[in-house]
């Protein structure tokens, strides 16, 4: 199996705090991989490193075999990696629909395309995505006026609209109505199956990540603690200890 994304011994320190210490992980093409760990274990730091939000101190990050650890955020996004945030980030002054419009596959479009209006079929697909995340009635509401959970869903819809090759999601189900969570899981699985989307997901909701991911990496104190299929991780003594404390 070819690896779409590989992190090799990635190290990042903030002053004296080593947030990521020689972390290696690999995400195969078309896979759904989970990233778990207690708060402060370095999960989001790793996401920031992959997406170019900050430079790494040592190691390498390869996307489709090419090192991207020195690229800037925009170039990494245009290479095909899009992320969502723990605290959802949407364009607050725009309506939900406008948020979708400006997210629709802009990363591949030539600059000149900005001077055109979105095509009808693209518009229809945007509306369909909004409908799927349950925001059909909020299409014309300011994104900034939406609730936390709604913004989270909008951000997900925006990320899907962008049609990335790889999507990094930081706690996609946090703050989302439990009724909708199953729908989100199904949609992510469908995106993988239909669009060939590869997913790397940070999640605290164990039932969700155990259902979604085929392979899980667990971080603790900035280091890779364990990795394996969900079944193994669930019963791994080190993982249980990291989450629940020593027995």
């Amino acid at each position, binding site marked *: 199996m070819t690896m779409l994304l590989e992190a090799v011994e990635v190290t990042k320190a903030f002053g004296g705090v080593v947030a990521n210490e020689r972390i290696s992980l690999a995400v195969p093409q078309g896979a759904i991989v989970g990233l778990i760990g207690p708060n402060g274990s370095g999960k989001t730091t790793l996401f920031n490193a992959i*997406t170019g*939000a900050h430079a790494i101190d040592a190691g390498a990050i390869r996307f489709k075999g090419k090192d991207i650890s020195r690229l800037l*955020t*925009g170039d990494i*996004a*245009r290479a095909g990696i*899009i*992320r969502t*945030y723990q605290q959802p*980030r*949407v*364009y*607050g*002054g*725009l*309506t939900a629909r*406008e948020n979708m*419009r*400006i*997210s629709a596959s*802009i*990363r*591949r479009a030539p*600059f000149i*395309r*900005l*001077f*055109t*209006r*979105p095509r009808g079929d693209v518009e229809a697909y945007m509306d369909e995505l909004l409908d799927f995340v349950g925001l059909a009635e909020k299409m014309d509401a300011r994104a*900034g006026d939406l609730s936390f959970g709604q913004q989270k869903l909008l951000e997900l819809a*925006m990320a899907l609209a*962008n049609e990335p090759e790889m999507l990094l999601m930081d706690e996609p189900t946090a703050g989302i109505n439990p009724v909708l969570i199953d729908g989100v899981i199904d949609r992510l699985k469908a995106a993988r199956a239909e669009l060939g989307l590869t997913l790397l997901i940070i999640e605290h909701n164990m039932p969700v990540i155990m259902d979604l991911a085929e392979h899980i990496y667990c971080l603790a104190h900035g280091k890779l603690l364990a990795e394996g299929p969900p079944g193994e991780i669930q019963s791994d003594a080190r993982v249980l200890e990291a989450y629940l404390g020593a027995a």
Partner: protein
Amino acid sequence: MQGGRALTPKRLVLLAGLLAIGIAAPLVLPGYQLQLTELLLFMVFALAWDLVGGQMGYNSFGNVLFVGLGMYASAIVQVGLFYDVGLYNEARGGGTDFVFDASQFLSGLALGIPAAVLVSALAAWLLGSLVLTMRGHYFAICTLGLGIAAGQVAAGIPWIGAGSGMLTPNPPESLGDETLLLYYLALGLAIACALSFAWLLSARFGLALNAIRDDEDKAEAMGLRTHAVKVTAWVIAAGFLGAAGAIYGNLVRFIDPTQTAFAGATIGVWMILMALLGGKGTLLGPIVGAVVFQITKELFWTYLLGWQRVGLGLLIILVAVFFPSGIVGFVRERSAAKGRAGEQSP
């Protein structure tokens, strides 16, 4: 918000009506030609400021830089086509040595205005590549500095008249009232500016500007070429500012480096005030703001002479305190609140 809406028959009638008023105004009010021309140029100043300051959220205090560059570029071309610019400015443009006949004056303008557009746009492209990597207060202060520096630099170049300024070519008698000509040039420019902005804002470009305003890092992480968008917006704004500056220079006929061309304390602040007054981040706001501003300015200068600056200062405070989202913003919020109230009542 996106400004792109369909051209309904009602809107067409409204636009045609406005165009008719625009064409007839200087003929109906011959005593106010100067002020009306100035108003049209102010609309362009405010619209151009708002594209970057309102729609994109980059508060530039130095847009007057492009006005001044346009003013000088046009004047230099208008003179330079027929005379030596250095000698012309040494002689203060006067006397019988530097006479422009009608065809010279008109061809000077015809080439001077495009030259102004080019020079200002080029300057925005070069400076924008550097300055637009700054954000928030840093960007604001840096652009303020650019405007002030430009005035000082211009005041030190004898070839363009240095601190004594430069006169634009004297319009020939045979041309009749050149203010009327400048008025229609300004009208054409204001229409071109409003229409092209309406189109830009209805395309994805407008959304890209708003996305940068709301969360630039997010936009970058979504793959939007934010830097290219920012520079493009500044170049477009600068082009219009340059053209408006070229006409403005010919309207006042005398280009003082710090008081007219790079007049940060007057035009530089006014263009921001007009956008805020009307409602920044809207297409209509800067236009409405320019009208209200020009009327109050003329009233203050007529009836409050000596206190006009105090009057203007009060206006700024009133806008900031009572209409933080401007006239258009205030009206829209009101109608939105009314709409919500209407939904709730049975």
